[in-house]
């Protein structure tokens, strides 16, 4: 792992197009400013891990019985397209 020291206001550049800047340091919280092309998704790592765990909990058998839902008036109505 590459470890770099940066001061507030300094940046690193990844692949010539992703800029990560140290914005602020407050106690043990570091605020990062990230500039990347819109084609590059940026997410907190926890989001991936949470979804992974959630998927594993959701995997079930084909014989599972489905819950009966209430308060879904839209199901009876017409589904329209709104863009």
């Amino acid at each position, binding site marked *: 792992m590459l470890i770099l020291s940066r001061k507030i206001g300094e940046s690193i550049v990844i692949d010539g197009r992703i800029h990560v800047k140290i914005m602020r340091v407050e106690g043990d919280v570091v605020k990062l400013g990230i500039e990347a092309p*819109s*084609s*590059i*998704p940026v*997410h907190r790592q926890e*989001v*991936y891990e*949470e*979804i*992974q*765990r*959630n*998927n*594993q*909990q*959701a*995997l*079930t*058998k*084909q*014989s*599972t019985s*489905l*819950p*009966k*839902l*209430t*308060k*879904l008036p*839209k*199901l009876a109505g017409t*589904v*329209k*397209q*709104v*863009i």
Partner: protein
Amino acid sequence: MKCAELMEPEITARTPHTNMVRIPTGLLGFEQIKDYVLKTNPEEAPFAWLHVGDDSGLAFVVVDPFIVMPAYLPDIPKVDADFLQLSEPKDALLLSIVTIKDGEQPTTNLKGPIVINRHTHVGKQVIIANAADYSLKHPLPVAAE
């Protein structure tokens, strides 16, 4: 790409449907499983089944997120829309994975829906750009017995 409601989602179609769905990158945590069978039955709406495409008998229960939350406005990152070759929102079928556990209220994941191209039947689990606005465990309103 902002995905709003879908036109005539298959999940609420009037007749049962079975469709092969290819998820080339797998679901998060299940990257090795790429072939699924989407089974919808009007009697089970708004739920549908995403069966693992082998003989394991395993499946995910999925739901139409726009029925669960009419104001749902997922922002599909451009890289994912490009990967799925989506040119407009109505090309996409969105499914949210449902978690059903005994004795607990069922929930659905609105942060990471499965987005399927209706024409190619290729899908991907997408972390929406506005994931922070939605819950990983959005509670489903269960009818009283």
